[in-house]
């Protein structure tokens, strides 16, 4: 294939004075080229990011629910997570927002798991309340945390006035802008 016919055609006989032309081989060693080819293939395969985006399903409740349809939450099983500004996250157990405690997104998991282990599975209810300064990333992070910690009962709501105020005061006290 990659060879040329170099044999001189015809039975032309050379004279005694004619020097025999040195036959150069036209065969090229293709090994380095193969190396290069496969190197490029490997490089492109590794350098390609398969960025197939995924989605997280989210189902929100209807707004116009009647009183009897409302989910009743036991105070002992309630955990409310409030997301504040500058990636701050707060939580409180039960129904009293003034008992707000600060935590971080990395520690949130242990807070949730602690609550999960100390509460009967049916009683546990987590309310996620993003403050007006929370970012979309915070919201998705916390929703993701629910999946990671295998929590089935949770809801998302807006922070009420008391919670907003408590968060604001805490932020002021901690000097978070």
């Amino acid at each position, binding site marked *: 294939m990659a060879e040329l016919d170099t044999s001189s055609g015809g039975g032309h006989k050379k004279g005694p004075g004619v020097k025999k032309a040195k036959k150069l081989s036209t065969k090229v060693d293709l090994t380095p080229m193969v190396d290069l080819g496969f190197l490029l*293939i490997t490089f492109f395969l590794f350098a390609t990011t398969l960025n*197939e985006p*995924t989605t997280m*399903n989210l189902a929100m409740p*209807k707004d116009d629910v009647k009183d009897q349809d409302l989910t009743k939450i036991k105070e002992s099983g309630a955990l409310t997570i409030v997301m504040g500004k500058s990636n701050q996250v707060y939580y409180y157990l039960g129904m009293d927002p003034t008992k707000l405690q600060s935590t971080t997104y990395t520690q949130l*998991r242990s807070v949730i798991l602690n609550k999960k282990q100390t509460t009967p599975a049916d009683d546990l209810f987590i309310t996620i309340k993003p403050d007006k300064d*929370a970012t979309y990333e915070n919201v998705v*992070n916390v929703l993701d945390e629910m999946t990671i910690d295998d929590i089935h009962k949770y809801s998302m709501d807006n922070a009420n006035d008391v919670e907003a105020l408590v968060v604001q005061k805490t932020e002021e006290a901690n000097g978070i802008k």
Partner: protein
Amino acid sequence: MARGKIKRKGTSIDMTAMCDVAFLLLSFFILTAKFKSAEAVQITTPHSVSNKPADASSDAFIVEIDKNGLVYIELSDSGIRSNVIDKMAQIKAVQFPAALKSRFIAAEMIGTPFASLPQYLQMSPDDQKKVTLPGIPVDSTGGELRDWITAGLQAYDNDTKAIHFIIKGDNAAKYPVIDDVLKAFKKNEVYKYRLLTVPTGVPVGSELFKKTAQNGGKQEAAE
């Protein structure tokens, strides 16, 4: 007795065929690679452990929220766009210029208030690139986005199974805008949508990690 001479064999193998294969593969991979189309609006989506493929290519109604809280709509199926704009004109009770309809269908995203849409579409593509899109107005009652969702639903004959609502939000988008967008969906009685995320690994040792290990590596379809 004279021993037969052992013929020495050359150890060099003809590499031509191998070389052919290597470059054939190389050109195949290069040609089949899909290039990411340049996006008009840069959106960095958050990470999540979810592993459901997005399938954003067909019948998706994508609501995009950029880092400044501006809202855009992207309709992945260009076939439905003419239907959507008709319905939207009906809702707004105005006549949408017929001449601009083809331009609307060709446009990749909707990023202006409905009133200034004709003005935007009239511009040449180069001018369109220069202007910063003001975004679709949203407020606590849903704003204009609510009407677009209604139009989208109507275009799909109110079949919520046929249309995929996807929210593509930027990491830095503030929650109030997200809330407004969710309200716009709520007003249309759409309660299920998907959030576009970048997949990430499940943290080792977490509850989900143990569960997926039990289920043979499959995440449960959480509703």
